[in-house]
């Protein structure tokens, strides 16, 4: 009995170990294959913004700029919408609507990135172009809105990222809100709170988890490839303008990986992949930590028996 149980543990454990091994292998492989580029360029790689591999220039600043800018913009749009949906589905909506709404948000999450990208190219970009053209000249003078109205660019990318991130973030936020004890809301109502005030009390209780949910959405946005590369314009420049075509780390990998003719080019691209890997890893670990910390807060404190005369 003993040895067969041990055999079972080792046998099944080997498969579990394979999972662990894969993650480690990814990290090692990325680090290894980017070492050429890291050694050659050092930190200047991420400080220069001229990306011209044909001429041997490898400035990767535009990619990290584009990734962060597009993801932050997307989160600014998506976070309130996702929270609104989460609150509506978990607190406000009539029971009969709940199932269908959850199904629809899951459907939104399940649509492949390439399909969003296709829709992005042929529907969203022309619409954004129309908006950009209709923008009054006074606003156009601002750096935020400068540049020719191409349609493709940061704005379209942020919009499509927001659409893709909303269902994911709202699903997690919904789970987080479910762990808030009903007694918190009841306490608020009993003190004369309106609906909004009682929900606000519940959201305050869940604030760590909600931040975690938003951060997880941010992590998703950082790594999104296809939809972004099809609408962002793929131009390696650092620009504040929403209209300017820009580039992200994931997009440059998608577009240029097969073109990388020499070892240095390839190594530079893999270094971009390594940094993307590390950033998403850090964001995901932090956000899961926040959600876990909130789950711990919900567990009740044990009652303690204290002698008379002191606290009771």
């Amino acid at each position, binding site marked *: 009995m003993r040895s067969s149980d041990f055999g079972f543990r080792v046998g099944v454990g080997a498969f579990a170990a394979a*999972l662990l091994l*894969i993650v480690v292998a990814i990290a090692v492989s990325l680090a290894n294959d980017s070492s050429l580029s890291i050694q050659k360029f050092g930190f200047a790689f991420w400080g220069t913004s001229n990306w011209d591999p044909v001429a041997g220039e490898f400035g990767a600043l535009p990619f990290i700029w584009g990734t962060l800018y597009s993801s932050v913009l997307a989160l600014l749009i998506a976070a309130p919408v996702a929270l*609104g949906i989460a609150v509506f589905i978990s607190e406000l909506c009539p029971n009969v609507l709940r199932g269908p709404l959850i*199904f629809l948000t899951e459907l939104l999450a399940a649509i492949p990135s*390439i399909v969003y*990208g296709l829709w992005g*190219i042929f529907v969203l970009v022309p619409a954004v172009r129309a908006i950009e053209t209709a923008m009054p000249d006074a606003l156009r003078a601002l750096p935020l809105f400068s540049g020719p109205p191409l349609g493709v660019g940061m704005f379209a990318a942020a919009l499509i990222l927001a659409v893709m991130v909303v269902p994911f973030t709202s699903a997690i936020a919904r789970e987080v809100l479910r762990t808030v004890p009903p007694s918190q809301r009841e306490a608020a109502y009993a003190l004369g709170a309106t609906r909004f005030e009682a929900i606000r009390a519940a959201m305050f209780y869940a604030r760590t988890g909600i931040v975690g949910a938003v951060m*997880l959405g941010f992590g998703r946005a950082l790594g999104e490839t296809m939809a972004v590369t*099809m609408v962002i314009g793929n131009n390696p420049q650092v620009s504040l303008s929403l209209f300017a075509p820009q580039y992200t780390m994931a997009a440059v990998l998608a577009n240029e990986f097969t073109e990388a003719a020499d070892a240095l080019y390839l190594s530079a691209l893999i270094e971009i992949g390594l940094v993307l890997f590390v950033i998403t890893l850090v964001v995901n670990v932090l956000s899961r930590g926040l959600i876990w910390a909130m789950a711990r807060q919900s567990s009740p404190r044990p009652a303690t028996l204290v002698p008379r005369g002191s606290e009771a």
Partner: protein
Amino acid sequence: MTGTRTATPRKVLSALFVAGCALCVGLALVPLGFVLFFVVSQGVQSLNVDFFTHNPRPVGEPGGGMANAIVGTLILTGLAAAMAVPIGILSGVYLSEYRGSRFASAVRFAADTLNGVPSIVIGVFAYAVVVLPLRHFSTLAGGFALGIMMIPIITRTTEELLLLVPNALREGALALGATRARAVFTVIVPAALPGIITGVVLALARIAGETAPLLFTSFNNRFFSASLSQPISSITVQVFTYAISPYEDWHRQAWAGALVLVTIVLVCSMAARLAAARVASMRGR
């Protein structure tokens, strides 16, 4: 109630908040409706028998289809499943049987991490591990990349489902003299099997729609291919190639391909939901 009355601004604020949340739901449903509308209306026009039976025509020539791409997607997902299902399910078994151990926590952490790795990075990894040694793009590399993406999904769903199996079943089997291995594989896993299969189907639907990890692993192929060491076409990569091309005819075929993808996703999602509902009702929950 005489005396104090609730100030109207508070009530207005509360009503506005409720309306705002409903608006958010609407805001999310609008793009969903938009996307589905365009995919269906544009895609249905180009869906014909040719689409499913012919390979792509040379550049510029109208007509042709995505037959090879459809087969390619099937082969790639099959490969991925062959790799991911054993590893995923058995890892899930380990995580549920040995919950508390430090190794299990590490594996769980790894699974969650792997879930969050961008798919393009996994493509880079598959490139380094399979494409470079073999010196060319291959079906194997694509299947490998997709398989890696499937593993954490299957692992976590399997773990959660196995934990739902009542402890009484495990104890009953052990009390009858079964070894742990026997108890797990003949009693516990079968009890959770419907859910596990649902999880696998959902994971398959998800990776069937992946493009980024295939861009430089399985690459693309204008013809049919069944060889593991050659590049292979796939619906997603083909749609991408067509979408960014300048040819109208290819654009239409891209919409048709997108429609096929969305249909696969919809059918699998609904099937999974129905199956889950049936299992729940059978258990009397």
